[in-house]
């Protein structure tokens, strides 16, 4: 009965006859039809109700903002990773150059190669590879250039100073030796 009242389906003749004969069922049938009609009335009134347009705009704005925010942490992670990588590189290069200065196996090997006490290792120079050939180049150098190589010279002097520069296969200086002027003259006459 409820479904017939709700859907408005055509009821059969037998059903109608029963309603005419049974007051209780007839009353129930009228109740169901009444309720169905009133529900429809309420439904039609309520259909126009919906959240405000302002609410919709605000929620869409918050949605857009919340998904923009999702990129911020990932950007932060990238920046953090880059900072850590940079720090690692800087610390690594510092440690490597310090270890060469402080008598690391590479610097000791270099001194063995030189075999001369007067040679001074150039600071921050890359270490020699095992079996790498070296060349000693005799040249006149500005006092400031020698000072940059760690030599204790008078930088105010205007005269160039003779020196032996030990150069690796890559052309980079590894060690330098200031020649005594008299010794240099003596050698040059030989």
């Amino acid at each position, binding site marked *: 009965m409820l479904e017939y009242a709700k859907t408005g389906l055509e009821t059969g003749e037998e059903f109608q006859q029963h309603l005419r004969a049974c007051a209780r069922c007839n009353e129930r049938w009228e109740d169901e039809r009444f309720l169905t009609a009133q529900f429809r009335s309420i439904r039609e009134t309520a259909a126009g109700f919906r*959240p405000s347009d302002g609410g919709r705009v605000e929620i869409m704005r918050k*949605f857009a903002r919340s998904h923009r925010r999702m990129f911020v942490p990932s950007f932060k992670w990238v920046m953090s990773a880059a900072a850590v990588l940079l720090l690692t590189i800087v610390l690594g290069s510092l440690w490597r150059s310090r270890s060469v200065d402080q008598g690391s196996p590479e610097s000791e090997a270099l001194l063995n190669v030189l075999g001369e006490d007067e040679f001074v290792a150039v600071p921050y120079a890359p270490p020699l590879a095992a079996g790498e050939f070296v060349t000693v180049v005799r040249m006149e150098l500005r006092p400031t250039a020698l000072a940059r190589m760690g030599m204790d010279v008078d930088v105010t002097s205007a005269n160039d100073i003779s020196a032996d520069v030990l150069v690796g296969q890559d052309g980079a200086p590894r060690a330098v030796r200031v020649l005594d002027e008299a010794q240099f003259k003596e050698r040059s006459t030989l």
Partner: protein
Amino acid sequence: MAGTGEELYRQSKKGDQQAFAELYERYAPALYRYALHLSESPAVAEEITHELFLQLIGPYSGFDEQRGTLEAYLYGAVRNLVRVARRNRIFAQSENQAADDDILGDLIRDQRAAALYAAIRELPPQYRDAVLLCELEEKSYEEAARILGCPIGTVRSRLHRARLLLAARMKAAVVSSPAEQR
């Protein structure tokens, strides 16, 4: 864009604004009305609908596809939020306002329909839910059963009982005010 509510939800979680807009258009009006029927306050209904979609945006929405449909989750969330709102200050603040401007109640021009709407509000919660979903939101018994998390037969019997109660109350109302005739 077409798709089930669950598909739209998944796409909106990936940042698809169009999917979220469609999700809102599909569910927000019905959820608003449901909240309005339960809370009797347009302000609370608006607040709850807004809060519900804010939860959906957030990382911890609580919706789990393994546990049920999105629709069932949303209607369940509205019921919970109405309960929370009743306890919270927000409801106390807007309750007076709701009493002053019961917009939906006022707009129901037919006095008998208005009386019926008032009677629906006085039903026990489980009967009221069946009426709201099956009669006012025109959900099928299957949909209502999913939303309410109970068997279809339970929805049918609740609706049947609710209609009997409503009919009896409407008759009592007519008897108490004999000037009104159906």
